[in-house]
């Protein structure tokens, strides 16, 4: 008899994988974006299932709330959303599916033959305040430098987006 926790895990896994497959398989681009959103929410559910609440919250806020909405907006700006996309040539589909299945098989062979070390008994405190302290710590186990570098990266990306998306004057070359 399966426990409730296990049933929830398999439901979340099925939601994630099925909607990811539908997202790369469907020919309507808007459906593809919505299936991507469902898949991202499924991954956030898996983070919740593993009791990484902070990662799940970041996943929902940034991915489901930010990136998926950005993608849906750009679909509306650049495409007629109801149209079918042309289906790829069957040779390309077969080759891509073969490459993906081959890679999946190789990874699975590695995975079932590999034994991971047994976990250490001590479980670290993963509350949000502990995460915040680690994020701003400057010692050997702190993440202050990557934190600052990511803030610079976000600033550079913001300026870059504005520069790229600015409309050039028509008389300029």
């Amino acid at each position, binding site marked *: 008899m399966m426990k409730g926790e296990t049933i929830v895990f398999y439901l979340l*896994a099925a939601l994630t994988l099925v909607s990811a497959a539908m997202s*790369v398989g469907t020919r309507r681009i808007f459906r593809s974006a919505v299936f991507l959103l469902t898949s991202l929410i499924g991954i956030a559910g898996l983070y919740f299932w593993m009791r990484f609440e902070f990662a799940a919250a970041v*996943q929902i806020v940034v991915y489901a709330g930010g*990136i998926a909405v950005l*993608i849906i907006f*750009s679909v509306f700006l650049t495409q007629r959303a109801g149209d079918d996309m042309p289906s790829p040539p069957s040779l390309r589909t077969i080759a891509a599916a073969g490459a993906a299945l081959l*890679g999946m098989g190789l990874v*699975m062979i590695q995975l079932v033959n590999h034994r991971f070390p047994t976990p250490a008994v001590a479980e670290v405190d993963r509350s949000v305040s502990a995460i915040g302290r680690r994020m701003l710590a400057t010692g050997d186990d702190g993440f202050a430098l990557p934190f600052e570098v990511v803030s610079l990266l976000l600033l*550079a990306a913001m300026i870059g987006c504005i520069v790229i998306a600015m409309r050039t004057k028509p008389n300029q070359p």
Partner: protein
Amino acid sequence: MMEPGLYHMLFIGAALFFIGIYGFLTRRNLITILMSFELILNSVCLNFIAFNRYVWTDKMDGLFFTVFIIAIAAAEAAVAIAIIIHLYRSHGSIDVNSAENLKH
């Protein structure tokens, strides 16, 4: 084997990665290529969290890597969509086959 654990999470991560690879290779529309790329990044994040949860439970590095990957993915998606919209304005299409010239 029915009890979900590290191997189940790694299987989901690998399956998501190769679903993303399949989409990356078959699609010819830039937005759908970007969506496949997001799936690939998510599979990597899932693997980091799974290792942090089941193998190195005394550390938090997987969690921090996931948070930084999500931040970088947000920046990357914003820049990519700016480029896609600019390409649509100048070429009238976002099919990768129509974007052969770097300077219009």
